[in-house]
C-alpha cells in the first residue's frame, strides 16, 4: 500500500512537469493597460568614428556562415550613419508606483546565423521571454544573472522555443551560447513597461506614460550608461537624445 501512495504521488508530480519553463505567460492582464497616452521618442547617436567590430570565424559552422553574405562580424558597437543601435533605454524615476500589469504576449529573442537577434531585449518581471532557434544546429542558452536564477538549456534543432520568466528586476541579464563563444545578448528585466531598445536607425519610443517628468537611463554593453530628464504633457510627446562617444 505504501508503495502505491508513493508511486501515485510521483505520477502526480510527473504531470506537473519538471520546473519552470512551461509555456504560458506571466501575469493577469490580457494587454498592458497603459497609464496614459504620452510618449517619449528619441534618438541615440554615436559621435566619432565607429570602431570596427571584430570578425567572427564561422568556418566550423557552415550553416551559420551561409547566412552572412559578407564576413560575419560581432555587432558589439552597431553604428549606422552616426546612429547607435542596441541601447537599452528605460524610465528610472518619476513613475507612479506599481504594480504594473504584465503582458501575456512574450518578449522574443532568436538565434539566427549564430547570433542572438535582437542583441538587446527588454522584458518585464513575470513576463515570458520566448527564446527560439532558427539555426539547424545546437545552441546553448546560458544566462548567469545576479538577481535571478541561472539557467543553462539547449536547443539542438531549428524551430524550438524555450520560455523563461524572470522574477526580479535586473539590468542586464547576460546571455551566452557556450557552443559559440562570440554569441552574446542582454535582457533588461524591468518592473514596469516603460522601456525600449534603440533600432538600427538609433530611434526608440516609450509610450503609454501619464503626464510628468521622468528620469531616463540609456545603457550600452561597452559604452556605458547615460542619463537624461524629460517632461511630457498628457497625450503629448517629448524627445530625448543620447550621444555615446567612441
Amino acid at each position, binding site marked *: 500500500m*505504501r*508503495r502505491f501512495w*508513493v508511486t501515485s504521488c*510521483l505520477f502526480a*508530480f*510527473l504531470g506537473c*512537469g*519538471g*520546473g*519552470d*519553463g*512551461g*509555456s504560458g505567460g506571466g501575469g493577469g492582464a490580457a494587454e498592458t493597460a497603459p497609464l496614459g497616452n504620452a510618449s517619449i521618442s528619441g534618438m541615440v547617436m554615436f559621435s566619432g568614428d565607429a570602431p570596427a567590430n571584430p570578425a567572427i570565424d564561422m568556418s566550423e559552422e557552415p550553416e551559420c556562415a551561409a547566412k552572412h553574405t559578407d564576413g560575419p562580424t560581432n555587432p558589439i558597437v552597431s553604428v549606422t550613419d552616426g546612429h547607435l543601435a542596441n541601447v537599452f533605454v528605460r524610465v528610472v524615476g518619476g513613475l507612479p508606483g506599481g504594480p504594473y500589469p504584465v503582458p501575456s504576449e512574450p518578449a522574443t529573442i532568436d538565434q539566427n546565423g549564430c547570433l542572438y537577434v535582437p542583441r538587446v531585449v527588454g522584458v518585464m518581471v513575470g513576463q515570458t521571454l520566448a527564446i527560439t532557434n532558427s539555426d539547424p544546429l*545546437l545552441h546553448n542558452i*546560458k544566462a*548567469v544573472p545576479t538577481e535571478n*536564477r*541561472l*539557467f*543553462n*538549456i*539547449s536547443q*539542438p534543432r531549428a524551430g*524550438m522555443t*524555450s520560455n523563461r520568466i524572470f522574477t526580479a528586476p535586473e539590468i542586464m541579464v547576460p546571455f551566452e551560447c557556450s557552443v559559440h563563444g562570440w554569441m552574446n545578448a542582454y535582457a533588461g528585466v524591468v518592473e514596469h513597461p516603460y522601456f525600449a531598445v534603440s533600432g538600427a536607425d538609433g530611434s526608440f519610443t516609450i509610450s503609454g506614460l501619464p503626464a510628468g517628468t521622468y528620469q531616463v537611463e540609456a545603457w550600452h554593453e561597452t559604452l556605458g550608461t547615460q542619463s537624461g530628464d524629460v517632461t511630457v504633457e498628457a497625450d503629448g510627446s517629448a524627445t530625448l537624445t543620447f550621444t555615446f562617444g567612441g
Partner: protein
Amino acid sequence: MATSAVSLEPAAHVEAHELSFLRKYIFSTDHKIIGIQFLLMSFVFLLFGGLMAMMIRWQLGFPERPLPAGQLLPETMAPGGILLPEFYNSLVTMHGTIMVFFAIMPLLVGVFGNYLIPLKLGAPDMAFPRLNMASFWIAFSAGILMMAGFFVEGGHAAAGWTAYAPLSADPEWTGVSGGQQIWLLSIAILGLASIMGALNYITTVVNLRAPGMTWFRMPLSIWALFVTAILVLLAIPILSGAAIMLFFDQTIGTHFFDWTDGGQVILWQHLFWYFGHPEVYILILPAMGMVSDIIANGSRKPVFGYHSMVFALISIAFLGWVVWGHHMFQSGMNPTLGMTFMISTMIIAVPSAIKVFNWMGTMWRGNIRFHVPMLHSVGFVAMFVIGGLSGIFMASTPVDIYIHDTYFIVAHIHYVLFGGSLFAIFAAVTYWYPKMFGRMMNSTVGKVHFWLTFLFYNMTFFPMHDLGIAGHMRRIYDPSQYEFLQPLAPLNRFITVSALLLFTVQILFAANFIMSWFKGKKAGENPWEANGLEWTVASPPPHGNFAKVPTVYRGPYEYSSPLVEEDFLMQTRKLASDVDPAAAGP
C-alpha cells in the same frame, strides 16, 4: 530479550507474542523480512534503471524519432518526445547511479547479506536486529530522496554517476543545482545504511557462528559477503566524506574542488575512485560467492580449490585498494602513477582468473544438473570472463589512451555488472526463492528467461566493444556529429533493438516472480538437495530460524561424498564417524 545483541540461545519468544502487521512486515527486525524488503525495493529501482537505459538507447538508435510515450515527459526534458541533451546527460547519470547504488548493491549486499548470513551460519538473526531494520528504512529514504531529484528546477544531477568536479560542483556549468545536491545527500544517507549493514554482517559472522562452523567450513557465499562487508565499512565513509565536501562546495562556499580558490579539481577523482574501486568489488564478490555455492550444488561436486577461492576473495579485496588510479590514467595525474597503478591492476586480474578456473574445475567430472540457478551461474562465469579479459586492455596504460572513455569501457562495465552481477542475482533469487517464499519459481519459464536474456544480452553488449575500438566516445547524445562515428549508426540501432528486446524479456522473470509467490509449487525444506544450514529448516523458516542451535560437522560442499549414498551430505547431518565440537565458537 532486553539486550540488543542476539545470543546463540534459540529465541524463546518465537511463539510467545503475535506482532502487529506493521511490526511483522513493515518495521520488522527479522533479517529474513528485511532481506525481502530490500529485494522488493531493489527490483523497483532495477526497473527504473532499466527504463532509463531504454530511453538512452532510443536516443542512440533512433535520434530523430520521438520516444514512445515521450509526450508524457515535460518540455524541460523532452519537447515533442525527443530528449534534450541535458536530459540525456541526466539519464546517463541516473541510470548509473540507480543501478549501482539502488539496484545491484542492495540486491547483493542488502538482500543476500541479510537473508543468508544468519541462516547459513546457524544463527537466529543478525547481531543487531534493530540496527538492521534501521538500515533498510534509511536506504529506502535515500531512494525516495534520490527520485525526488527529477522534480526540482534545473533537473536531476547530470555530471555522470562519477560526478566529476567542477562539472558537478558549480551549477553554472550544467544549470543543475538542486538535483546535484539531492544526489549528494541521498548518497550520503545511503552510505549510512550501508555502514550499519556492514557492522551487522561483520559482527554476526565473527560472533554468531553455530558450534562447529569454523571459518573454513563457511560457505563461499558467506566468505564473500563477509569480505564485502569489510570493504563497505572502509570504502563507503570515503564516498560519504567526498559527497559532503562537494555538497559544501555547492552550498556553503567551501572550495575543496575549486581551482580558482586554492582547491584541487582532481582531488574529487582520487577520493571518488579510492571508494569507487573497492565499490566495484563490492558489486561482484557476493555474486562470485553465491555462484560458487550454486555451481557446486549443480555439479554435485565440491568447489574445486575451496581454500584458494577464499584466498582469492581476500586478495581481490586487499588489492582492490591499490588500483584506483587506473580510472585516472589520462587525468593529468603524475604519469609515474600510471606505471604503478598499471602493475597493481595487472596483478589483481590474477585472483579473478584463479576463480574462473576453479569454477570450471568444479564442473569438471561433475554430474551436472542444469536447474535454472545453475544455468545463470554458468552464464555468469561465461560472461564475467569476458568482462575480466576486456579489463586487461584498459589496464595497459598506452592502450587505455585510446579506449578510455569509449564504449569499450561501457562494454566492460556491463559485462561484469550485468553479465556478472545480474546473472548471479537471477541465479541467487531463483535458488533461494523457495526458502524465502515457500514456493518454487516455474522452471520452464525460468529456462526460457535465461536463454532469451543470454541471447539478447550478448547482442546488446558485445558489439559495444566494436564501437569502442572504432573510437566511439561515452556519454554522447548524438554521435552523428562526428564523421568517423556516422558509419556506426547501424550498429547503434542494432544494439538499441537488442536492448529493447532484452528489457522486454525481463517480463518473464517478473511474472514468474510474482505468479510463483501465489501459485508456485510448494517447496519442501531442501528442494535443491543442497548442504547448507538454511536447507534444514522450513521454507520459509520461522522467526528465530532454528528451533534448536544447530551443530556443524563438515564443510558446505560435501557433494558426491564417498561417505554416503546420496550425492549430497548436509553440514549438520551427524554421521557415526562424526564427533561433536568441544564448545561453541571457532
